[in-house]
């Protein structure tokens, strides 16, 4: 029976739409191809996180060098802006187009690995054989709890010094050459600054984040990372101290909502006396706040554990890569000692390869501020740990920040606020 013309006409747009739509979800369940231990060949994609604008030449050269050494491989370099990187990754992952080699931090690699989208390097002999080239801390920093291994090649590390304004210290009668080293000294200095300035000068621009709880010596999670524990008495003690400080004016009035960018801006405007940062900031201070730069003090972030905080970057390999051997070879190439050290000479980050930090570049102060920060940071990195639990999602960070805010406002006791934050985060952890 012929189909009536009218019905056929009505069907056309629906059919076209249906085809368009089904195309959106064709990620498939392809588990990739190729043997990771075979000969590197094929076209692969490599995605970095906000590095093109400043390091285009470095990465173009790196890709060319790799392609020259591996004639059968072609690398397409992609770069994504800093903002919403996790959303970009999730869109790629959902569409089945996760790049073969992808720049991730442990908290980003965790959900990807959990969904089976990243290669377990410890279980892949072709990748595991390079484990000894990296420092144990860095390799361990990329290990994911409950997932039985490490899912990214360790790349660059960073740790932040704490900047302080010597002029504001002097005005408060504090010795600008003796900045606080631990949380007790920090609270004492902040109290003095608040009292002497009549509450006009705050010491810190933000509220305590999870790294602060870690550096204070609070146990953040249980051993198998299935439950948060930062509501233990030590955590409550830290929050109680912050509450006293907030009431005194030791924290910026907008500290409950300030983002790191905003606190950085307030430090630049000399509205707060101390702010965590990185060596990147020095250039910014020099250019935009020369008055502050002249009075700039640099010290380690306050610490009660003796182990500083470290930020870890890695390169994951997609488990669905069609050219796993090429992807593994390239990820290892980018993160090998020579290339990591070369990259760390271009920007204030630190290599995660064994022995690199013993190089005079990271041990001898050349007399410049940059050199001083570099050597101090490199020294801190030895024995540093990544305090941020890899299972801590953005939503859990918001939960903690909001519950901390309620305690500081006096709407909840510190104990109740942390209990609630832990309960909500545990619930989210179970759902994830």
């Amino acid at each position, binding site marked *: 029976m012929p189909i009536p013309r009218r019905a056929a006409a009505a069907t056309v747009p629906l059919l076209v739409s249906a085809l368009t739509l089904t195309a959106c979800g064709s990620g498939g369940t392809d588990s990739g191809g190729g043997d990771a231990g075979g000969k590197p060949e094929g076209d692969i994609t490599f995605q970095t996180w906000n590095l093109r604008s400043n390091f285009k030449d470095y990465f173009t050269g790196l890709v060319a060098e790799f392609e020259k050494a591996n004639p059968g491989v072609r690398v397409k370099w992609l770069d994504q802006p800093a903002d919403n990187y996790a959303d970009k990754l999730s869109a790629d992952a959902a569409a089945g187009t996760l790049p073969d080699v992808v720049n991730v931090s442990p908290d980003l690699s965790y959900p990807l690995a959990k969904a089976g989208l990243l290669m377990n390097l410890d279980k892949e002999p072709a990748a595991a054989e390079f484990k000894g080239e990296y420092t144990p801390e860095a390799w361990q920093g990329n290990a994911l709890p409950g997932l039985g291994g490490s899912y990214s090649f360790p790349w660059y590390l960073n740790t932040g010094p704490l900047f302080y304004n010597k002029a504001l210290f002097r005005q408060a009668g504090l010795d600008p050459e003796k900045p606080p080293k631990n949380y007790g000294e920090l609270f004492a200095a902040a109290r003095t600054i608040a009292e002497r300035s009549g509450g006009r000068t705050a010491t810190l621009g933000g509220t305590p984040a999870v790294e602060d709880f870690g550096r204070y010596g609070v146990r953040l999670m249980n051993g198998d990372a299935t439950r948060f524990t930062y509501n233990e008495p030590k955590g409550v003690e830290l929050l109680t101290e912050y509450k006293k400080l907030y009431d005194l004016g030791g924290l910026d009035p907008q500290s*409950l909502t300030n983002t790191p960018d905003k606190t950085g801006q307030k430090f630049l405007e000399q509205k707060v006396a101390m702010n965590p940062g990185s060596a990147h900031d020095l250039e910014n201070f020099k250019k935009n706040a020369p008055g502050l730069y002249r009075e700039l003090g640099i010290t380690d972030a306050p610490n009660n554990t003796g182990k500083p905080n470290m930020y870890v970057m890695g390169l994951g390999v997609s488990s669905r890569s069609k050219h796993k051997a090429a992807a593994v070879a390239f990820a290892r190439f980018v993160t090998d000692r020579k290339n990591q050290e070369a990259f760390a000479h271009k920007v204030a980050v630190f290599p995660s390869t064994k022995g690199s930090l013993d190089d005079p570049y990271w041990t001898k102060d050349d007399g410049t501020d940059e050199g001083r920060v570099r050597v101090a940071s490199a020294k801190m990195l030895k024995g540093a740990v990544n305090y941020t639990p890899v299972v801590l999602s953005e*939503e859990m960070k918001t939960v903690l920040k909001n519950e901390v805010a309620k305690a500081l406002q006096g709407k909840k006791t510190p104990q109740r606020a942390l209990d609630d934050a832990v309960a909500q985060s545990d619930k989210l952890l179970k759902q994830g």
Partner: protein
Amino acid sequence: MKHVRTHRAASPWLFLLPGLATVTAFSLYPFLTTLHKAFTDALTLTPGAWVGLRNFRDMAHDEQFWVALRNSGLYVVLVVPFTVLLPLLLALLVQKRIPGVTFFRSAFYTPVVASSVVVALIWGWMLDDRGLVNGILRVLGAGPFAFLGDEWLLLFSAMALTVWKGLGYYMVIYLAALAHVPRELYEAAAVDGAGALRRFTAVTVPAVRSTMALVGALSSVAAFKVFSEVFLLAGPTGGPAGQDTTLVMLVQRTGTGLNGRVGYSSALSLVVFAVALLLMLLVLRADRTRRPE
């Protein structure tokens, strides 16, 4: 010609095809997907299983949801009267043919075309505890006020920004409506001794009532779905202790990122959709019942 006649039935559909395909791909399909996901425990990277009404039950016990619903509701109640009345008054002002009025029309419209992000950043600087507004207030012997630190001041500041940014847009809609009000009505009212206020209530308002209903409906939905102004002024946590979170901010917070709770976020989106639809229908119905037969 023969060819065209043969496909006469198909021709309208062919013309409609690009529009239909776009609407289907970018509106209908996402809507249906959202509808389905709302009843699952889907995460960003896992499709999830059917959980019935669990997401809606969770919502009822979610403190943040009630805070967000309160804020979005307050936004409608407090913003809409201003976005309905102020643009009408502005339109009446710039409707007059006086020298330089074109400049004012453009100036009032400028916030509409300005980027929300830039505008919110400027407002953020002005409302900072040591910003321009507090500086002026200090000179006058008042303040400082924690516009960006107090949950209520922050929400009211975001509302003021929304009203200010929307004035020009709704003003243009009113200008079009006012152009159709016969001059004779004003002249007759003036002859009868009506003053400016009386002319406004007896001539202008009845003449543009349908437009007011339209502006009311549009601004109600926009106010209920507010995101950027509050997000940019209050920060990603939704103000101090999250007390300025709006429903769309909650949708964004719970549903995005690699750990996004897509199922729960979709359920929240459905609530936003249902309430926005209800608001629009209520406003339009109110206009219909008031209109004389």
